[in-house]
């Protein structure tokens, strides 16, 4: 049965003010059911205040083969990192 169902990615916001974080995936017939299962599978211990579910097939993901063109050009641009700045007094990290 599970192989006829759709895969959904689940995002849970653990507290107000925080971002939704990807917590895993599950199978469901449609998004309404996915939301209910997300509640049962991923928030049983009171982890969340808000849940998003997204059909996995709707996600466009970068590929391993994209790595070279996507990320390598950034290797020689260290000035883009905040690490070059001197920290103002009282600030521990940026």
């Amino acid at each position, binding site marked *: *049965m599970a192989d006829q169902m759709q895969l959904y990615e689940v995002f849970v916001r653990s507290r107000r003010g925080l971002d939704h974080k990807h917590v895993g995936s*599950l*199978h469901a017939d449609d998004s309404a059911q996915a939301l*209910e*299962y997300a509640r049962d*599978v991923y928030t049983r211990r009171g982890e969340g205040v808000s849940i998003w579910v997204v059909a996995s097939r709707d996600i466009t993901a970068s590929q391993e083969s994209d790595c070279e063109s996507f990320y390598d050009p950034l290797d020689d641009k260290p000035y883009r990192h905040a690490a070059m700045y001197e920290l103002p007094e009282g600030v521990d990290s940026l």
Partner: protein
Amino acid sequence: MTPDDPIARYALRLGDDALIMGHRLSEWMSRAPFLEEDIALSNVALDFIGRARLFYQYAAQRVGGDTTEDTFAYSRDVRDFTNLLLCELPRGDFAFTICRQFLYDAFALPFTEALSGSSDPQLAAIGSKAVKESRYHLRRSKDWMLRLGDGTEESHQRCQRALDDLWLYTAEMFQSDPLLDDLIARGIAVDTPALHEAWLATVSETLATATLSVPDTDVEVVGGRDGIHTDDLGFLLAELQFMQRAYPGLQW
């Protein structure tokens, strides 16, 4: 083993409903149609077991002495259990379990809402805690009714068959008896006979949307509240109580 205190007896009825329903649901663990549903069913089972504990603890407190929640769950014989027959019927196929759950949840939501207004503070507190769970249970079981009833020919047939088999047992939820009448008059118990009309409306509406028919029968099977049960409850208790019967007082 049956206490004299009417409130303790009432709490036991409600505890028995919850324990037996929870146990039947727990039988699905590792056997549900797929993983997500397995976890969801287990969650609902745990809600019911948790509810049973609260009712039993309260009954034990009222009875006093050495009595604990475990005394009620593990040391009573089948005739001492006063759960609804609906709760004890074997789990059947998935359609049967879902239909039973839907018929019960549609009752449990208004019931727990009303219980939270009980003049007995402890029962009211249990009601308030349970009402949120019941709201979710009904949402789930109603959703499944629509999927199964208005699904494939096979799921529709199985669902209708389950409804026809279960319908005879629904009248017991709204049955009245002297204990209940007394507690209703004192504002302690929920006036369950008065919930019937709203229950029927909720159920009929969902069944119509799910393309299922309300079974046409006047036959009513009752007896659970008097300890008259189906054979199946004995087998359920044999499994549920085995460890404590074989090793009394065992802890882990």
